[in-house]
């Protein structure tokens, strides 16, 4: 763990991920000073709790983006895992079986994504889009259209409970970030992922196991989307087929706002944490102002572009 901290500190110094945190701190400060309600502890707590749902998905997305992929099926997987877990848990299975089944299926989807990208050579964007579509259909068939509700105590306390005043969901997110950070920044597989993201031909010619790396990234991403689905199930107590939709593009936005290059091969997982928090904070800020929805979206778009201009530009030559 101390290795991770040291490496992260070194990587963050003067990097774009550090910018994400800088901007986050400034925005938060501005919010506390100039907007109502952002100085309350309960709001803070709620913000990090709800940011965790997005954040967990975004951590997975980072793994895929670093190796120059993209996963548009996360929305489908979030719904898949929640729906399956709820249905199993509310039926005969019970909570533990439900969670296991949900995660196993999520991982399977990740494997399918990777197989399509690696073996069939379908571009990641199209492949994951297609699996997302297939998932939506498959879930309709599976649920026969009526997703269940379920109270799984473990998930309930995971989503809503607190540890020393800190929401468990946030703790879980940070834990996941630490594990994924170790995978990406310390382990051999992580190095392979960066190499693959920086250039496939050179990676192949250096003996990087392309297939295995892609599988690890896609399966981890799908697993994390599955975890997010479970936490959401705990949070809302119910599942629905559309519950993952908001996380598809927002997870990508978080990754990018966190300073990770969308082209792959460059970035830091911690940046994504900052990115997800920043995005959640911005949305919350905009919500707390009484603007029309159109203006709100314009402001959000302009803000994101502005931030990216400040620290996410790709240098040439």
């Amino acid at each position: 763990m101390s290795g991770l901290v040291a490496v992260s500190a070194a990587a963050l110094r003067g990097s774009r991920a550090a910018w994400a945190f800088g901007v986050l701190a400034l925005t938060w400060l501005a919010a506390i000073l100039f907007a109502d309600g952002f100085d309350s502890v309960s709001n803070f707590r709620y913000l990090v709790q709800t940011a965790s749902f997005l954040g967990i998905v975004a951590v997975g997305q980072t793994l895929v983006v670093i190796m120059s992929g993209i996963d548009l099926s996360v929305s489908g997987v979030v719904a898949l895992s929640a729906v399956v877990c709820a249905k199993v848990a509310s039926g005969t299975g019970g909570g533990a079986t439900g969670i296991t089944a949900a995660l196993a299926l999520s991982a399977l989807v990740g494997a399918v994504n990777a197989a399509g990208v690696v073996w069939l050579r379908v571009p990641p964007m199209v492949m994951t889009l297609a699996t997302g579509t297939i998932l939506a259909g498959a879930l309709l068939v599976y649920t026969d259209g009526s997703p269940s509700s379920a109270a799984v105590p473990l998930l309930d306390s995971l989503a809503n409970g607190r540890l020393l005043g800190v929401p468990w969901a946030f703790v879980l997110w940070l834990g996941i970030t630490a594990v994924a950070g170790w995978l990406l920044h310390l382990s051999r597989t992580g190095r392979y992922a960066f190499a693959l993201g920086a250039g496939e031909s050179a990676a192949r010619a250096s003996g990087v196991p392309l297939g295995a790396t892609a599988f690890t990234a896609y399966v981890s991403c799908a697993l994390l989307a599955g975890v997010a689905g479970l936490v959401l199930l705990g949070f809302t107590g119910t599942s629905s087929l559309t519950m993952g939709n908001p996380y598809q593009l927002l997870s990508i936005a978080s990754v990018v706002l966190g300073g990770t290059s969308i082209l792959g091969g460059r970035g830091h997982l911690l940046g994504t944490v900052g990115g997800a928090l920043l995005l959640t904070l911005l949305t919350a800020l905009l919500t707390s102002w009484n603007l029309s929805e159109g203006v709100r979206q314009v402001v959000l778009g302009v803000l994101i572009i502005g931030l990216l201009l400040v620290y996410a530009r790709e240098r040439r030559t």
Partner: protein
Amino acid sequence: MRERITTAARGNTDLLGLLALLLVLLVAYQHYDPSLLSPASVTILSAQFLPLILAAAGQTTVMLLGGIDLSLGAVLGLAMAVFATYDARGAGGVMTAAALALCVAVAAGAVNGTLVAYAGLPPIVVTLAASFLWSGVTLVVLPQPGGHVPAGLVDAYNNGWYGIALPAAALALVLAVWKLLRTTRHGLALYAVGGNEHGAYASGLHTRGVKIGGYALAGAFTGLAGIGLAVQTGSADPTIGTPYTLNSIAASVLGGISFFGGVGRMRGTVLGALVIGLLTNLLLFTGISPFYQLVIQGVILVAALALKTYVTREAAE
């Protein structure tokens, strides 16, 4: 003569498969709808497909430059909204409304292009953020479905005008313009920048200008798609554009446009869009359960792309 045919065929090998697929679909379609080749059917179908084809043409233009446009759906909605609301005010006839809508779309494209060219931000990121921006603007222009398009025009578009399928004519016109454009310096520059940006820059090309021009052209195609959709539906709807983003990408990729830029032809994209359009229609005719329709769509997309990659890889070796 035969030589010319074989040369033409060789130049289009990548499209032959797609063409064959299209033929198969047409035959199947004919089976369900024997009136397929009647003028009325041609009018109806072309009216239906025109917006997607035009949107895909816009997406293709950007992809040829090595970019991708995730804000396409939003810009399409914006053009549609401007067209129908301006017309609703009765302030100067359809032509002015169309010109205005087109200008707005071109401007939106140029803004995207400027951000990509000057800011050094990856296109996918710029257009993702811009999608918030443009859909926000759309909501400001048109907060809820409405607007107005002259009934005569709607009727002429959807049911033919003195026996002429207007959408088909519009499509032919646009393709002719593209073909012409493709042989101008601007067209060649588009491919040159898409194929090797730095090389083009080092060889003295105004790569930034070319990019902005390309994105603006994409905006024009998208704007036309929006106007087409407005005329088809007789109104505007601020949220109707969204699905066009991903559908246009699917059509372009199916049509052989590379994600890396510089490779592909507009005719491929048109075929790709037709295949997607016909396929969805065919699924309606076959009466497969709606639950399974999504699954089948996804599977077919992946299968078609995988097959295409496989075939072209064999051919390339």
